[in-house]
């Protein structure tokens, strides 16, 4: 019995152990499968359940002015997206959405009927609308945040800044040229969430900054930019110009302080303008500058020893025959004159002779020396290198034409850079518009430094040329740029325009330009204004472009705290102490009131007996301005007013004789 029991026990133990062994083995095999063979796919499944990968869409970097004024920034705006496959009651959902989004019902329904998992219903909606749509709780409708570029100043500096497309890529201007820097890096972040889908812990502090694009600071002074645009726009509209641009540069450094283009456009709604509005004419357009080229060529001739300031040249009374062509002086004629007068009165015939005396090779040399035939590389989009035929293809009279600015086509940026060289003592500076690039943590990655390309002319030649250009504004063709407190040096230019169809010059279409720097002895500002095809007022640079420079200089000098020289101080400025500040303020207030015709009780008084400032007015506008004041007006000459016998702001006595003298500009 005992033996049988023992055998049975043994069998039972064997069975149990065998079962344990079999099941254990099976478990081990299963574990092996799960841990080794199926592990990668199982790990993926687990990851998908507990982790979510979210992508930090990089925020586009900002663009600032030199003083830190915001010029361009990006902000997330709500957009409404749909997953049409998830939406059950399409008609009902479409009706509600069309009302809130203000889109036609058919359009919404057609989008909801698409066989897609994602479609935009509306890209930019207000927060209120987004909240209302979220509250509807429609499955398959989601609110997606997306960055939108915003330019707080509207059209200010639009041509330089450019604009950004719907996919956050720069399409023009700085936005396009520095797209990679501004755009930042897209980064992925793994977050853990619980069974309910709530985020538990984000191991990604600071990732927002890490993905943020770098910020760009420009050399632009926002206030200068605004007044430049304002007066350019005003004058170009009055002259009915097809296009215009203006550039202000710091001649000591080559930093671009303002760059304006006409007509303007608003980059917030760039798609509503024709593409020709987007172009930055100041850097992309080549034009034959006309007489503004003379200072550069004449400086070269003086530097070469071909001429001296007192060299006498024959003006041939406005018409000079040379090798089959006739060179004319516009609107006036000259006899013999020296080089100072050549620049002062802008004599083409004289400049032609100087050019011929220099010869082709030297002229070509000086064009290159001033940087006219190379790209300026200022960091702007679409910079042109200028156009000129190779010197081997110049005709015999090539140097003559080049000397008064017909032949070589240059850009405004090249010309302002060359002008700055005259202003700063002869050093050609590398122009630049990027002041610095700063990463999101505030560390500067790049800082621009002024760079001298070469010394173009020596100090003696430079002083002589500055003096000649001073004469232009003092009593020559650039008198419309005269300022009372500051001495301005400048040069006018009226260039002919080539008809692309015939290859010949248009008869009545010109490029009217004016370039100047101020203050005369130690210039702090250099400015160029170019107007394309002005049709009204005048086509002379001195008449339509010089006033822009004058108005901008007047205000810019105050903005930059550049005070008049010592002589002007004594004449114009009252030096005061703080004790009599109140008296001074009252004095200014009275003065302003007087000029605005406001009496002590702050009431507007009749301005019948006050003489307005008529300088620069045409006959019609002068009469208009004193209409009703006095009928006893005597007019002498034609053109623009240069003399009035009664000082502006003074009272006109009853029946007092008013004498107004006019003369043509040139």
């Amino acid at each position, binding site marked *: 019995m005992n033996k049988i029991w023992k055998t049975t026990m043994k069998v039972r133990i064997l069975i149990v152990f065998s079962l344990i062994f079999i099941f254990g083995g099976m478990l081990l095999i299963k574990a092996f499968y799960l841990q080794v063979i199926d592990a990668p796919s199982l790990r993926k499944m687990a990851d998908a359940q507990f982790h979510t990968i979210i992508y930090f869409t990089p925020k586009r970097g900002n663009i600032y002015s030199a003083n830190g004024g915001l010029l361009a920034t990006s902000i997330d705006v709500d957009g409404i997206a749909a997953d049409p496959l998830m939406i059950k009651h399409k008609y009902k959902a479409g009706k509600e959405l069309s009302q809130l989004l203000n889109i036609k019902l058919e359009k919404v329904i057609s989008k909801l009927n698409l066989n897609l998992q994602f479609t935009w219903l509306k890209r930019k909606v207000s927060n209120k609308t987004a909240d209302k749509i979220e509250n509807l709780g429609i499955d398959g409708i989601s609110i997606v945040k997306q960055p939108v570029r915003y330019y707080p*100043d509207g059209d200010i500096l639009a041509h330089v800044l450019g604009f950004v497309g719907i996919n956050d890529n720069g399409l023009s201007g700085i936005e396009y040229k520095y797209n990679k820097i501004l755009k930042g890096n897209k980064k992925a972040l793994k977050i853990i969430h619980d069974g309910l889908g709530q985020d538990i*812990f984000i191991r990604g502090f600071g990732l927002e900054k890490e993905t943020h694009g770098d910020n760009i600071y420009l050399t632009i002074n926002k206030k200068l930019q605004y007044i430049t645009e304002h007066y350019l726009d005003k004058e170009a509209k009055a002259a009915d110009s097809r296009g215009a641009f203006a550039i202000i540069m710091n001649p000591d450094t080559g930093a671009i302080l303002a760059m304006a283009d006409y007509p303007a456009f608003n980059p917030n709604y760039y798609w509503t303008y024709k593409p020709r509005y987007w172009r930055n004419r100041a850097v992309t357009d080549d034009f034959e500058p006309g007489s503004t080229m003379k200072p550069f060529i004449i400086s070269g001739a003086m530097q070469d020893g071909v001429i001296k300031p007192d060299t006498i040249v024959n003006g041939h009374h406005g018409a000079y025959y040379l090798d089959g062509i006739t060179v004319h002086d516009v609107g006036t004629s000259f006899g013999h004159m020296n080089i100072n007068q050549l620049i002062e009165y802008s004599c083409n015939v004289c400049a032609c002779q100087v050019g011929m005396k220099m010869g082709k090779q030297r002229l070509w040399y000086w064009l290159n020396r001033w940087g006219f035939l190379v790209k300026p590389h200022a960091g702007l989009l679409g910079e042109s290198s200028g156009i000129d035929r190779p010197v081997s293809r110049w005709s015999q009279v090539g140097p003559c034409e080049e000397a008064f600015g017909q032949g070589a086509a240059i850009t405004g940026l090249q010309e302002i850079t060359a002008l700055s060289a005259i202003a700063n003592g002869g050093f050609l500076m590398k122009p630049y518009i990027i002041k610095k690039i700063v990463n999101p943590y505030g560390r500067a990655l790049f800082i621009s430094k002024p760079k001298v390309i070469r010394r173009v002319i020596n100090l003696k030649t430079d002083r002589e040329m500055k003096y000649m250009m001073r004469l232009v504004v003092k009593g020559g063709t650039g008198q419309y740029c005269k300022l009372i407190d500051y001495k301005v040096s400048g040069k006018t230019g009226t260039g002919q325009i080539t008809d692309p169809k015939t290859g010949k010059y248009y008869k009545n279409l010109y490029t009217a330009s004016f370039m100047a720097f101020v203050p005369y002895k130690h210039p702090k500002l250099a400015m160029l204004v170019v107007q394309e095809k002005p049709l009204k007022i005048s086509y002379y640079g001195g008449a339509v472009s010089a006033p822009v420079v004058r108005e901008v200089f007047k205000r810019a000098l105050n903005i930059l705290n550049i005070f008049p020289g010592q002589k002007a101080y004594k004449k114009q*400025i009252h030096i005061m102490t703080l004790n009599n500040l109140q008296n001074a303020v009252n004095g200014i207030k009275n003065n302003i009131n007087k000029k605005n015709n406001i009496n002590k009780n702050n009431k507007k008084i009749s301005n019948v007996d006050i003489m307005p400032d008529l300088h620069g007015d045409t006959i019609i506008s002068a009469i208009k301005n004193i209409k009703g004041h006095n009928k006893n007006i005597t007019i002498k000459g034609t053109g623009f007013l240069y003399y009035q016998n009664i000082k502006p702001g003074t009272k006109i006595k009853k029946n007092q004789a008013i004498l107004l003298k006019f003369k043509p500009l040139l």
Partner: protein
Amino acid sequence: MSKIKPYLIIMIFIISLTGIFYVWTNMESMKLGYEISKLETIKAKLVHKNKKLLIVKASLASPSRIYKIAKKLGFIYPKEGEVVMIHE
């Protein structure tokens, strides 16, 4: 039955304590994780609001807007000679 040794009890106690501590820290970490997550959302909203306000500020300080207001109020640019230098 052999006597339970004291060091074994101490060991079990320490292991249990460590286990409890481990679980507690994990729980705390989870709690803090939720809080951080909530704060991150609030922060993102505030950053967005801040950015909006900065844009509003920049728009209000736009030179063209200031010029229009100044013109409306009758302000004029000082003419030449009307700028007075003050020496302290």
